């Protein structure tokens, strides 16, 4: 028995290492790239040994991309700010709209509630490009194209169904008796929602918010089509690194490191909630 379990743990260790290598290697490689110049990145054969440089980060933060021939202005930091602003606002709006709606779908069985909930989910089925063409025309007509408001609105297509369905599962998980008990004790509907339902669904709401934030942050296509340079998030802004004089791998790598940092930190911090929230949503939703 002892030998089997030793063998087992060794094999498990190898398997885990392989998986970590497989998934983490690209990130590690990009992390290393972000401290190199284009020349050291592109040399053959590639080497793990190089003289680290901070020029990539420096030029990103200062906004001046120094190529071999000329200096190029980039808006990386403003893109980063756009990403942050768009994601945070979208998720906030999504939570304000989605959480009460999720509660309604979970608790108040009204005619057509299932159909409405499903319709909201079905927004995720359609390919974004299919929605985007007509949307662009409408947005130009009503003056929402290239505005933060318009983008946040469109981001609800990503954020709202996610929040709705995850949080709904959490609300359904709260025994109705607990809410009844609070009502019978003499508290009204809204007090019960605020003091009982919201705190008890808290982890689910946090998980849904985090996931929605990551999805919003990673969105590319909506912002590419609907936003001009000064409203673009990093996902779109990164295109600027492909210049006429070549591709600046070092700066791309540094840009990636900066742009995944917030979601990476959030995910690390809240991975427990994430897994819990997702699995609950999957079972109950």
């Amino acid at each position, binding site marked *: 028995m002892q030998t089997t379990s030793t063998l087992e743990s060794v094999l498990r260790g190898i398997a885990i290492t392989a998986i970590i290598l497989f998934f983490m290697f690209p990130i590690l490689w990009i992390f290393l790239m972000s401290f190199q110049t284009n020349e050291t990145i592109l040399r053959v054969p590639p080497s793990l040994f190089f003289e680290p440089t901070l020029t990539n980060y420096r030029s990103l933060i200062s906004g001046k991309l120094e190529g071999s021939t000329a200096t190029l202005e980039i808006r990386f930091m403003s893109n980063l700010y756009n990403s942050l602003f768009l994601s945070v606002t979208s998720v906030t709006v999504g939570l304000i709209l989605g959480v009460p709606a999720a509660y309604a779908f979970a608790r108040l069985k009204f005619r057509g509630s299932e159909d409405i909930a499903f319709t909201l989910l079905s927004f995720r089925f359609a390919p974004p490009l299919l929605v985007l063409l007509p949307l662009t025309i409408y947005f130009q007509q009503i003056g929402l194209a290239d505005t933060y408001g318009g983008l946040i609105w469109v981001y609800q297509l990503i954020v709202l169904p996610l929040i709705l369905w995850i949080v709904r599962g959490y609300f359904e998980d709260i025994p109705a008796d607990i809410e009844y*008990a*609070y009502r019978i004790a003499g*508290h*009204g509907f809204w007090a019960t929602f605020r003091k009982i339902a919201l705190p008890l669904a808290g982890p689910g709401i946090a998980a849904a918010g985090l996931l929605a934030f990551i999805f919003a942050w990673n969105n590319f296509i909506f912002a590419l089509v609907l936003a001009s340079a000064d409203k673009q998030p990093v996902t779109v802004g990164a295109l600027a690194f492909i210049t006429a004089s070549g591709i600046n791998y070092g700066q791309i790598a540094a840009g990636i490191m900066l742009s995944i940092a917030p979601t990476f930190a959030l995910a690390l911090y809240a991975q427990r909630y994430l897994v819990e929230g997702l699995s609950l949503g999957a079972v109950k939703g």
Partner: protein
Amino acid sequence: MSLELTNLSKSFKHDTVLDGVSLQVPEGKTLVLFGPSGAGKTVLLRLIAGVIEPDNGQIKISGIDVDGAEPEDRNIGMAFQNFALFPHMDAHANIAAPLTAQRKDQSAIQSGVQALAKLLKIDHVLGHKPKELSNGQKQRTALARALAGKPKILLLDDPLRNVDAKLRFEMRLELPRLLSDQNATVIYVTQDYKEAMAFGDEIAVINDGIVQQIGTPEDIYLTPANVEIARLFGDPVINFLDVTLQKDATGVFVLISDKRIDLDANYSHAIGNECTLGIRPESVLFVNQDHENAVPVTVEAETPLNEKTVNLCLTARGREIMASRPAGTDGPENGPAFVNIEAANAVIFDKQTGVRIESEQSTGEGNVT
């Protein structure tokens, strides 16, 4: 405050849970709702509490129709079978919930919670979250929460179901006093006939969504409305024997193992019917053979049951009869013996419908619905 339910009905989809339930509880009295699981007891409590709406019928609290009134406006206290404590609040906040709803000031809330906690012996765990409480403490917290708002109507949904035997025994002794101190009108739901008999000024037996019998504990025990109720009340369960009522010059009787058991003459309207004779085990007494009409039986087994000892016997035709006697009294060895059946306490049911056949003089007394 009195409580009056008239013709309440409730269905979920195609499943009728309550079908025309009418009940009245006078002010300050305790009505026990007794019935098996799925009988509709909990749904009835929820209708009274206002968390679900009836399809039909009327609920009056102090003579006022509460149709459409929200649960928070009904001045009701309720203890749930699963406790339904607020998991994110400590015991103190749980108990204080009705007081905060009444916008009492901090000191009034403090003293109210403390007094109740002391009474229910949970004052040392007021700072604990529900998951840190034992089942007994949870149950007391739930009870304290139900009482805290000084409600005029108290709904207790099988509050002793999920607690251990020792605590259940203690609470059976404490609760009646606690309830009478509150001077509230109480509806107490239980599946335990002993609780029902101990707590109820009246008992309403509910099954399949209808009230089958309402009466005092004695009424229900001595004159159950049907076979099912007779079976549910009493431990060990009542004996049932299929018999045919007969009559001769001396009176009405049935034959068990060819021995004559004389019955009340007032059953003469049921002569010739196939009936089920219900005999409580305590009415089956071991006697000597020379006793008149002693029924021969074979004693198969003996089981001590707390304060009673129960013998399982077989009649000549192999029908099982249980005889119960106070523990410590002399009993027969396994093997042949004789029993005397006290016919005065026997109840007779129609074999087909299971409904009790009333003796003619008691017909129309109105304690049976």
